[in-house]
């Protein structure tokens, strides 16, 4: 083995390759410490000839002045890069402490997850198109499972294993009566705003009398369902996701499955049915509140008498308006329940996932509601309703 190149006192750390009878040797020189600037040390991978095949790679610490944990990390990283797979390492004149530290870290870090077929999986931080496709498939599968659970329940509605009745009653209470205050406030403000803004436009044409038509048709056909859906998404969609994700994190969902029970039947169906049952009632109530809230604006600002306002509101509404509004709102409610339950049941098993599931449930519900509103509006109009 040739002698190492002598370093002047105080020279920085470095690593150099030497070749001798024992094969390749990586010679470490200087102080391998943070203060000495060890982070700048680099060395190219050795270009081994056939003679070096199978020979151990020697690391020589004879010229090492000092080392610290920082330097050990640099050396470990460097060895990860230059040591050919399957080729053993041999230490020479290495400080015992450094050798022990490197031995502790001898297992190579798992830098990527690898699938069973050896294909690298995408990391969690960078969801790829494939992940989005997988998410969509999981959502479809979830819808299918819900439909199957619904089918099982319809075949045996009295079976508590298919859906406990007391849980349905509890969810009805949460979805309906407890939502009334916030629905009242929001829809009253929307009705008032609609009357005020609609009146301003109609007033220019002297058609203030039609304010009631604008408010009644707008609230019943579109806005009551939409606003109620948004409120329910924030109030119940988020709650469903948080409840189910917490149960998932605490292995409660697994415990149900281990008992031979179907979480779809016990957890999802009561929430879904509660919202679907309550949604038409809430939407009808919200529409009534919105129409009534438009009355003060129409009467005080635009001089429409209360009697005329109410009469026109009733006259302007048709069965089609009511049915379309209720159906659309009920669809939104179903989507909210599905989004919340889907995110909750598919959450990971940790506390952070609960917050993530809640956020995703609300965002997903709102996107689904807007998409459904757009789609149903086009569909209904094109069908002539």
């Amino acid at each position, binding site marked *: 083995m040739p002698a190492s190149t002598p370093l002047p006192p105080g020279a920085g750390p470095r690593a150099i390759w030497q070749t001798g009878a024992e094969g390749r040797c990586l010679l470490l020189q200087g102080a391998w410490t943070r203060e000495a600037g060890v982070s700048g040390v680099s060395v190219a991978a050795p270009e081994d000839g056939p003679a070096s095949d199978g020979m151990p790679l020697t690391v020589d610490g004879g010229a090492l002045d000092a080392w610290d944990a920082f330097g050990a990390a640099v050396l*470990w990283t460097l*060895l990860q890069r230059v*040591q050919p797979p*399957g080729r*053993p*390492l*041999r*230490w020479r004149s*290495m400080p015992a402490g450094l*050798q022990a530290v*490197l*031995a502790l*870290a*001898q*297992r*190579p870090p798992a830098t990527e*997850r*690898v*699938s*069973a077929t050896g294909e690298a*999986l995408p990391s969690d931080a960078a969801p790829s198109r494939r992940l989005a496709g997988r998410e969509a498939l999981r959502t479809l599968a979830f819808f299918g499972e819900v439909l199957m659970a619904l089918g099982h329940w319809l075949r045996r509605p009295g079976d*508590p*294993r298919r859906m406990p009745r007391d849980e349905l009653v509890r969810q009805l209470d949460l979805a309906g009566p407890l939502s009334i205050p916030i629905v009242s406030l929001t829809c009253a403000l929307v009705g008032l705003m609609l009357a005020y803004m609609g009146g301003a436009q109609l007033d220019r044409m002297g058609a203030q009398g039609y304010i009631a038509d604008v408010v009644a048709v707008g609230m019943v056909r579109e806005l009551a369902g939409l606003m109620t859906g948004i409120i329910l998404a924030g109030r119940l969609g988020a709650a469903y996701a948080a409840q189910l994700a*917490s*149960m998932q994190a*605490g*292995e*409660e969902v*697994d*415990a149900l*499955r*281990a*008992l*031979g*029970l*179907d979480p779809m039947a016990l957890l999802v169906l009561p929430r879904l049915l509660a919202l679907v049952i309550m949604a038409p009632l809430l939407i009808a109530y919200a529409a009534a509140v919105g129409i009534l809230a438009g009355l003060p604006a129409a009467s005080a600002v635009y001089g429409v008498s209360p009697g005329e306002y109410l009469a026109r509101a009733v006259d302007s509404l048709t069965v089609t308006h009511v049915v379309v509004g209720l159906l659309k709102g009920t669809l939104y409610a179903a989507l909210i329940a599905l989004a919340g339950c889907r995110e909750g049941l598919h959450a990971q098993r940790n506390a952070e996932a609960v917050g993530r599931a809640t956020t995703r449930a609300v965002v997903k519900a709102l996107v689904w509601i807007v998409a459904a509103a757009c789609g149903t509006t086009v569909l209904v109009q094109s069908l002539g309703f």
Partner: protein
Amino acid sequence: MSSHPVREAAPDPEGIQDLAVPLQIDDVELQQDGRRVLAGLRFAVRRGEVLALVGPSGCGKSTLLRHLVGLQAPARGRILLEGQDLNTADDDGRARLQRRVGVMFQSGALFSAMSVGENLMLPMRLFTDWSADERVRQARFRLALVGLDDAFDRAPSELSGGMRKRAALARALALDPPLLCLDEPASGLDPLNAARLDALLLHLRDHLGTTIVMATHSVDSVHRAADRVLYLDDQEQTMTALGAPDHLLRHGPPAVQAFLARSPAAGPAHGARGAAP
């Protein structure tokens, strides 16, 4: 994949086709998120034994346990519960089989919206025709078995971690299952309660004939309660030893001896990379 043969301490072969054994695992491969966790698993659990699944953290003990109770399906192979394949059974058959297994999860997994007593009575209410009074009596008895006589009306959130685990064990016993699968039953328990829990498991085995499979890190529990040990190796991604603890302690592979002797020095170095000569 492993080049080590599985070392079986008992002389008799594993009898995969024997339908009398409660649980048979036949050339099973397990995956998690598309990644292979364990493969080449082939063993049977004998009726009335305590089998401990041991191995380093992350070797797949809990994953295996989840597969054994039907919460996940194996990527390959068959898991036969009382002779029936969980993954090919229809929904009702699968649910019926699952009710033959009591499961205790690592975190306890008590239903937080219910009291401890209601947690125990839920499976009784859904799957038995016991009267309400009978359910209360049976639930109280099971709580007494695990030393939680006074926890019947308490919420799970009011219990300590160890108490939650014992309550979870009581729930796992609710339907008197012939097979119990326990995930880290001793973790979070003080040594005295851990020893009591092991004594309870032996009592269940000896007097009720319960078969018990437990994933555990506790070597003390293994030596106290396990009839056999199945060692799962995270490097080989398979089982590398199956046998009585005392036998494996003396004649098992080095990693198993090291585990059972609680001595890292006796174990093999993990990989050759960077190893000093």
